[in-house]
């Protein structure tokens, strides 16, 4: 048994998840973390699971065609402690190439890491929402200023604010 990464992308239709997970279950795979969404109407799923590489590859073979499926063996788990406090990053404005790269570069420059990110194009409006960890040593004021300058150059609005979590 090893940890496997399975990706499935293709035109959406009812039953894809049922088909894929049924094929995986048939080989005795244990699903661990997964994420599925629709990206401009395309079905897109990523699964990390533990199972037998050859058996899983064979099991998903009949589903290939319209669906592009990849199966890869992964190295050991890469979990790490949070590198700093959590923040929410929002960017929105007129769509143009380079928004995500320019904004995320600013986060990377201060040693921050993005733990979750979604972008949506809605007509002419481009929206990015991301969860970010910023190391305590980073100069937050400088980062905010750098983000503002970058946003101004791109003609978009950017907000970086502490992520709130309520423990109940």
């Amino acid at each position, binding site marked *: 048994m090893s940890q496997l990464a399975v990706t499935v992308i293709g035109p959406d239709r009812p039953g894809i998840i049922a088909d894929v997970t049924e094929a995986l279950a048939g080989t005795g795979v244990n699903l661990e973390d997964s994420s599925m969404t629709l990206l401009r109407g395309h079905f897109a799923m990523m699964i990390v699971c533990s199972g037998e590489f050859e058996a899983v590859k064979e099991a998903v073979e009949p589903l290939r065609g319209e669906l592009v499926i990849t199966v890869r063996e992964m190295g050991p788990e890469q979990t790490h402690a949070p590198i700093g406090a959590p923040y*929410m990053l929002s960017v929105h404005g007129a769509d143009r190439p380079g928004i995500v790269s320019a904004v995320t570069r600013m986060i990377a420059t201060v040693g921050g890491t993005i733990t979750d990110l979604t972008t949506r194009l809605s007509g002419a409006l481009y929206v990015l929402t991301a969860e970010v960890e910023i190391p305590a040593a980073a100069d937050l004021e400088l980062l905010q200023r750098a983000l503002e300058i970058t946003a101004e150059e791109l003609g978009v609005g950017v907000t970086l604010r502490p992520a709130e979590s309520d423990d109940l």
Partner: protein
Amino acid sequence: MTHLNELVASWSPAQLGLVGDVLEVIRAPHPVLALLGAEVDPLDPVMVALAADLVATMRVSPGCVGLAAPQVGVAAQMFALDVTGHPKTRTCHGVFVLCNAVVVEASRQEKAREGCMSVPDLTGDVKRATRLTVQGVIPGTTDSVTLTTDAFEARAIQHELDHCSGKLFLDRVAGAHALYPRKVYL
């Protein structure tokens, strides 16, 4: 339910003395939606007319419970609101317009999904205070009113106040996966 401000609750658009025009609602990413709204003179006839236009435009827009001046292309601190009949409304001041409104007190944050006429195809989960006190001026008067409300009216006011300072609900979305394409069932 909180105690109603009677001046606001009994206000009617007829007090503006003119019938507003229905204006086009501006959509993001139009730059006017990102501008900090200017403080307005509530006695300025242009601003009184704008108040009537906001009410008229809100009235003809299905499901619209509030409209801020930047949404009709004017970067000014004014919004119209009417949450009457909405299932999430508790305290309700009916239809009113406020100029230069500021938050006096806000507490009891709760997350809920909201949409916006200026971002018609997306909705998002946003945390907002469910107890709110704001102070503003009714257009056409110099009366500073203090209004305390809760639930949906509180959320709607905070949404409009954001517009007045150049913010959208997109700036407050609660998580990377808290933004949703609006579902339209055919």
